[in-house]
């Protein structure tokens, strides 16, 4: 008995030993391993598809806020200058930037770049026909360029990484590349991408949203215009020496000249414009001239009176796709855009229908009554401010007991308060990454910057299409010369108006080299007038009316240039509190990154 038991016991022990590997050599049961992946075109497709989520839009990049940090809170055009509001950029326009320890906009973007690098490396090792995956390789390059451009705009030159790094990679401790080297890398990737990306017509309906050849061209045009004008107007003033501060001014061999970049920008824009795949969304006839309101709210057939859904939109050249059932914005689009009100400057930028500015147009009615300001103006004024309703404020309807200006309705959901068509966080319009209107404006600006002039023909084929939708007379060389208008200024005005709240204003001011100048002026609200200019808020004796409670306005009033001459307006943010400097053209590099890699130099002025 004892022997038997012992044999069994020892036998069991050996048996146990034999199945040791059953306990130790285990594999993941609900995950495919990387080693078994990237073997089919579908897998490359899925991998690049994922990168569409990383585009900054409503829900933004992972853990990284969203577009509200970039849509222009705190700019010279915006009445909302408060700190810590949704945008988080309220202080930026005043030059109020602290050097952060950590900046997710640095961290996360390099993650996206890594993802693109990884896909490109896997593609190099792909066993099948390269033609099967060329679209996805092109997309990966496009996204890599897209994210480097984000870094370029924010920090200037940054370290360029084009391989999937590991913790042993020496690139981790490399110095910054200059902005010219970064630009060169972006342009190279985009050229490669453009060559292999499909035409818009080749992208099936259920894949719309994928980047087409024209999407890449439009983006390349944007990059080229940006960098050419930056070099032209800002030059090397933000570059630093590259050793003690900044990323330096080293230019790679064969770096394109400003003119070549502008030329190419115009050419790329032209290619998109003439592709036949895109057209401005213009339903003015049926939508009371408010295409510029409805375009941005298309969110299912219930989102506009015409029942137009996303298939009606051929204006967005590249867009982030949202959907009420499968991908809601998960942010309060409507509430956040409401707060993005208009500064005095913005309100006065809207032209009168004759194509002339308020200070020149005989059609402008002034500010005596709140109704006057809206007469004979650019449709975008009523689109953005009055939205679907379109009811011009009646006398007495505005009282100044705290509010400083009109709220914004661009991008806000129709009937938000009345029927809750799209409650908070469920609004799901597509986000326009690049739309045709911008391509038109790039074309006009690039040509003008290159040549110092632009033909009526070119104006008509670009900017005037945008103006036409806004109900504004075409910009012609004659109109300009007859009224003493500067065509470049008018093109820039058009950008401010058409692209309002679309992640452009700060970028534009900087690349034009005028950010200090424009941002450091008083930001004002309503014109309250005074003795010589009675309004609903001040009577002819200069006394506040019942509609106006000056004690609510800490910053008081100030006489500023308006469409009706020098008049008193409410001050939202006084010039003495605004100190945007040249150094603020670039954000500081987060200190934790400098601590980790001492070769990373801080941008000038932040040490």
């Amino acid at each position, binding site marked *: 008995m*004892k022997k038997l*038991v*012992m044999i069994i*016991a020892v036998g*069991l*022990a050996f048996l*146990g030993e034999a199945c040791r590997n*059953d*306990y*130790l*050599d*285990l*594999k*993941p049961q*609900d*995950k*495919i391993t*990387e080693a078994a*992946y990237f073997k089919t075109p579908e*897998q490359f497709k*899925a991998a690049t*598809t994922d990168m*569409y*989520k990383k585009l900054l839009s409503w829900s933004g990049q992972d853990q990284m806020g969203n577009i509200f940090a970039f849509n222009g809170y705190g700019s010279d055009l915006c009445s909302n200058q*408060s*700190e*810590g509001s949704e945008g988080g950029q*309220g*202080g930026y326009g*005043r*030059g*109020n930037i*602290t*050097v952060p*320890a950590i900046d997710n906009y640095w*961290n996360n973007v390099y*993650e996206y770049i890594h*993802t693109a690098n*990884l896909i490109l490396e896997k593609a190099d090792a792909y066993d099948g026909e390269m033609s099967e995956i060329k679209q996805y390789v092109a997309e990966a390059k496009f996204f890599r360029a897209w994210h480097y451009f984000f870094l370029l705009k924010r920090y200037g030159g940054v370290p360029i*990484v084009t391989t999937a*790094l590991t*913790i042993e990679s020496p690139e*981790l401790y*490399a110095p910054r590349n200059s902005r010219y080297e970064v630009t060169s890398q972006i342009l190279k990737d985009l050229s490669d991408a453009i060559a292999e990306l499909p035409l818009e017509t080749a992208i099936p*309906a*259920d*894949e*719309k949203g994928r980047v087409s050849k024209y999407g890449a061209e439009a983006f390349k045009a944007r990059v080229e215009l940006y960098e050419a004008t930056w070099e032209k107007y800002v030059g090397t003033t933000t570059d630093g020496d590259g050793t003690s501060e900044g990323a330096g001014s080293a230019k790679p061999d064969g770096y394109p000249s400003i003119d070549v970049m502008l030329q190419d920008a115009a050419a790329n824009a032209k290619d998109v414009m003439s592709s036949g795949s895109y057209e401005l969304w213009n339903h003015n006839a049926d939508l009371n001239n408010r295409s510029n309101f409805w375009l941005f709210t298309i969110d299912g057939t219930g989102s506009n009176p015409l029942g137009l*859904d996303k*298939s009606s939109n051929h204006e967005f050249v590249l867009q982030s*796709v949202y959907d009420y059932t*499968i*991908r809601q914005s998960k942010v309060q689009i409507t509430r956040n855009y409401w707060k993005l009100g208009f500064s005095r400057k913005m309100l006065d930028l809207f032209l009168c229908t004759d194509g002339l500015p308020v200070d020149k147009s005989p059609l402008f009615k002034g500010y005596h009554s709140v109704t006057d300001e809206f007469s004979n103006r650019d449709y975008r004024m009523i689109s953005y401010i009055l939205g679907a309703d379109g009811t011009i404020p009646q006398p007495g309807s505005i009282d100044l007991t705290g509010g400083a200006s009109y709220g914004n309705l661009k991008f806000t959901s129709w009937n938000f308060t009345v029927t*809750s068509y799209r409650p908070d966080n469920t609004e799901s319009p597509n986000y326009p990454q690049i739309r045709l209107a911008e391509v038109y404006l790039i074309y006009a600006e690039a040509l003008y910057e290159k040549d110092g002039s632009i033909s009526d023909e070119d104006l008509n084929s670009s900017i005037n299409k945008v103006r036409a939708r806004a109900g504004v007379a075409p910009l012609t060389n004659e109109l300009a010369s007859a009224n003493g208008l500067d065509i470049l200024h008018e093109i820039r005005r058009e950008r401010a108006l058409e692209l309002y709240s679309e992640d452009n204003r700060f970028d534009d001011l900087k690349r034009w080299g005028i950010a200090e100048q424009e941002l450091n002026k008083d*930001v004002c609200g309503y014109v309250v007038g005074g003795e010589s200019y009675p309004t609903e808020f001040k009577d002819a004796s200069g006394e506040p009316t019942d509609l106006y409670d000056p004690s609510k306005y*800490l910053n008081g009033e100030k006489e500023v240039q308006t469409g009706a001459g020098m008049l008193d307006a409410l001050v939202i*943010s006084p010039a003495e*509190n605004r100190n945007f400097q040249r150094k603020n053209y670039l954000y500081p590099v987060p200190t934790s990154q400098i601590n*980790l*890699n001492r070769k990373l130099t801080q941008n000038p002025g932040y040490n």
Partner: protein
Amino acid sequence: MKKNSKLGRFVHPHVRKLWLIMRITTFLLLAISLSLSASVYSQTTRLSLDYSNATIREVLRNIEDQSTFKFLLQDERINIDQRIDIQMDQADIYSILDKIFGDKSVSYTVTDKNLIIIKPLGSGKSNPVGQVKTVSGQVKDESGGPLPGVTVVIKGTTKGTITNSDGNFNITDVSSEDVLVFSFVGLKTQELPVGSKTVFNVTMEESSIGLSEVVAVGYGTQKRATLTGSVETIPAEKLESRAVTNPVLALQGATPGLVISRTSSRPGNENIDMQIRGASSISGNVQPLIVIDGVPMIDASQSTTSVKGNGNAFFDMNSDDIESISVLKDGMAAIYGSRAAGGVILVTTKRGKGKMKVDIGSTIRLNTMGIRTPSANMQEYAKMFLAANAEEPTPTWWFADKDVMEKLVQGESGFYPTAHWGTMYIGQGDRYTEMFQPRLSNQNNISVSGATDKTNFRISGAYANNQGNLATAYDGQKQYNLRLNYDYQITNGIKLTSNISYQKDKTSSPSGGLGFSLVSQDPPLFPAKNPYGQWLSNFHNAGNRNAAALTTDGGRDNKENDMIRVDLKTTIKLIKDLQFEGSASWQSNQYRRDLYKLKVPLYEWDGTPAAGALNNTPSISAESDNTFYQNYTALLRYTKVVGNHRFGIMTGLTAEHNQWKGLYAYREGITNNGVYDLNAVPLDKATSNNSGGQDQWGLYSYLARINYSFKDKYLLDVLGRSDGSSRFAAGSKVSNFYNVGVGWVLTNENFIKNLNLSFLDYMKLKGSVGETGLQSGIGTFDYYSVIDFSSVALGVSPAAVSSSSVHNNGLSMNPTTTWERVKMMNAGVEMHLFQNRLMGEFNYYKKQNDGMLINVTYPSVLGASAPKSNSGVLDVHGWEVSLNWQDKIGKVTYTIGANMSDSRNELKKYAGAETIAAGLVNDPGSSSGAWKVGYPVNSWFMYQTDGYFKDEADVDAYYNKYTSNNVGELSGYEPASGGNTYQGLRPGDTKKVDLDGNGYISALGNGTSDKGDVKFMGDAAKHYVFGLNFGAKFKGFDFTAFFQGQLQNYIQRSDALAYPFVVIYTNQNAAFLGKTWTQDNPNAEFPRMSVNNIRNRWNYQNNDFMLQNNKYIRLKSLIIGYTVPSQLTERVKIDKLRVYFSGNDLWEATTLKDGYDPEQGVSSNNSGYPFMRTWALGLNVSF
């Protein structure tokens, strides 16, 4: 050997019989109660000797070493230096003594604790004087149960008997001058003079010494007296009569070094955390490994929303099933290798013994409300709003104007105009009275147990229903337990042991409304119902929160765990001294969660439907997962005594596998039709959601332990384990862990004995060095790079297009990454003083986690989180002390116990650059990743402040000094900075000190790690954690008071109610009322109250004065019991009847300034639920 001149009489045949019975009883008792298949002690009852030409002295000494027998020679005439030959195998002590002394005419008497008194024949009192009679009686244990097997002898003789299975005994021919000696292993020996009595009813008390106590130490047991490690044992009585269902809650403060915390008293949602000897790693709190009846409990922690994480197998145990709990704190835990760094808790369940017995226990508890969140009521809220606007250049009447607030201060409800929502009814929104009431709970258990000489069994069942104080709906946990422990001795050498248990918990709560939204999120101005009895919409038509409505009608969150566990074990004696033990344990946990959220319409004050509703998107989700854990162990045990040397060797292997499988499904659109299941909701493919998941891990380990002792004086324990784990790549799977312990029992040294220190009964010095492992924070397959799948919306009519990404961009764990290893060192002293009345133990320990797994921070250019690597070092040290005094004053026996422990740590190495921030640094849970070497885990770095601005000039001077170049934090507080916000500093605001003198205020300094304006002010761990225990017994009464607390625990309150107006639109913390700066109160404790939340951040957050020392003492438990005298209960066949009062958390004192419960944790969100006090009445019946 001591010698004594008293003589005795030889009564050989009686003694033989007595010993035979005793041996069996002892064997059974030990085997049963200790779940010990190869008990050292059980073998000592049969001895093997092999001597030729040895002196009797040597032989006796060897028997002493081999067993717990001691010999006392009562007469020098016995020649023990005589040489004899003796060869005996597995003989009992009497056969041996007969053989040794043979015809030497001696008698031997057994007394207290197996002391054998050897006397020459014919000596002693041969003819007792006085009346000769027969005495009888019954012996019981402390619980009132009959105690079989107790030795009853006439003192000075070997004449006696043992009690039968009913505890009864009967001795004839007893003189009235005799003294009866009652003895039993592990219990206090009693001597009672016979006198005129003929009936003796004796209650045996447990021995105070505890040295003979056998302690579970992992894969075996050891005698406490010869232990070299730091092991705490918590006997069953610590868990008895406690009005808690979860045994862990009864352990709070019970033993030094084990810190148990909870952040709520909501049944099933206590959020329990256990920590042995402080931090072990920066990977987070390392929980102890919990081993129940020798097998680690199932780890169901993969369940993401599991009710109680990985603890439920222990938390849901029936406390009444627990015989004892051992806590392995030092390197002794290394026998559990890679999971031992957090210490090990060994739970041993009760087994049947003695006569069949039924025990019934029942308690009914009243839970009342204790400390509540200090959120303001209507008057306080309005008062705070007025105060915060009083000094404000741009007052913000966010809610309603000043005159409205002034009315509210007066407590006047009514219709008022508001800022954004028109005119609305404002009244007292007191959710506490609306939603909370004292609630009854109950807990019941029954067990039937017993033993024969071949088997023993214990069957038990328990049911508990614990309810929190919520009055609007059920909020609580029901628990069900069944257990059968059954052992069967097949043959002399083969024994089967089985444990079968089933436990179930059902936690049911409202689907929401009990966190932040309960009392803290909204101003307290909205009554739950309108005059028509309809749920009121707060904020007029904009409101979508009403906790009373949501908890009542908003659906339920039901969570269940069903756990079944079967353990089978066999022990087989292979050859002399060698035993095989094989065991298998299968444990299965089924988790299920059903969460449904129903739409609750809301109404205006006037009864019209409101625009908003609660749970606007009604939904239901079901989650189910199953964990199956298998454990197989094969062990060999060998014990050998050679001369003065005693060896015990254990070696074996164990294999474990854990498999988890989960499912989740979600549908939208559930309606309140009484059926709450996924199937009751139409499937909408667009909004439905589901997921699966599987995971597994395995361990395959070899282990060994060697115990050696020389004369019970010099002790050595060596143990080791080689763990193979599936969590690491091939080549790195195996790691070895060990511990070496030494002990020195000074009181067994002759030179100490010779000092005749009458006060010193026992003293042991001990020390150990070991190394344990840690796998927390390591995923099951971190070394594989895997693909994550999701989808992206694309298309003109958007549809989900599948997408994939390489997890963490392919940066998976390096193949060479391996376990965290914690070196452990322990040095301790144990002492028993003053006739064992005072017992004390002190331990000092050091731990070093070398090669701590951390996420080394690389430059972000890397583009992914760096995989964990063994690149950190954490040093930990601490001490524990416990003192217990027990004595008697007259008929009152009393005990006083105290214990305290502390643990400190320091981050010694952390690869990557340091980053500093204001607030918590070295916070394992932080995403900001602020690290600083040289400081503890969770260090507080706070701004130093220098009071508050006196006047405008003071403010101006400050601005002039510290606003340079638009840098630093002050630049965010410029006066009148735009829009309508104005956050410029004013008199009454906080003056932060420029500690580094760089001309501006910043936590970060100028980008270098060693500068900045914050200073270290302590760490967030609990320090000087203590327990105080007072107990007394008098006749049938018993009393226990147990206090628990801590003397140092730095906290900064976080989230919405951390300080006034963290957020302007929430409710506020009323504890700050009257304590803030005003013109009239310039020396207030806190700075100015303000409605500007940005300035408030400057004024309060991370400032030195906001750090509180959360020192507290709490009356955890108060028990007063009365046992009805057995003379009364016997008549109704009841062995024992006890009634008691038991209270929990009835009183506390705390140094917290902001009004929170000291146990609540730092977040002020999710904190509306009041802590409860428990008042229970209980009953124990045994028959």
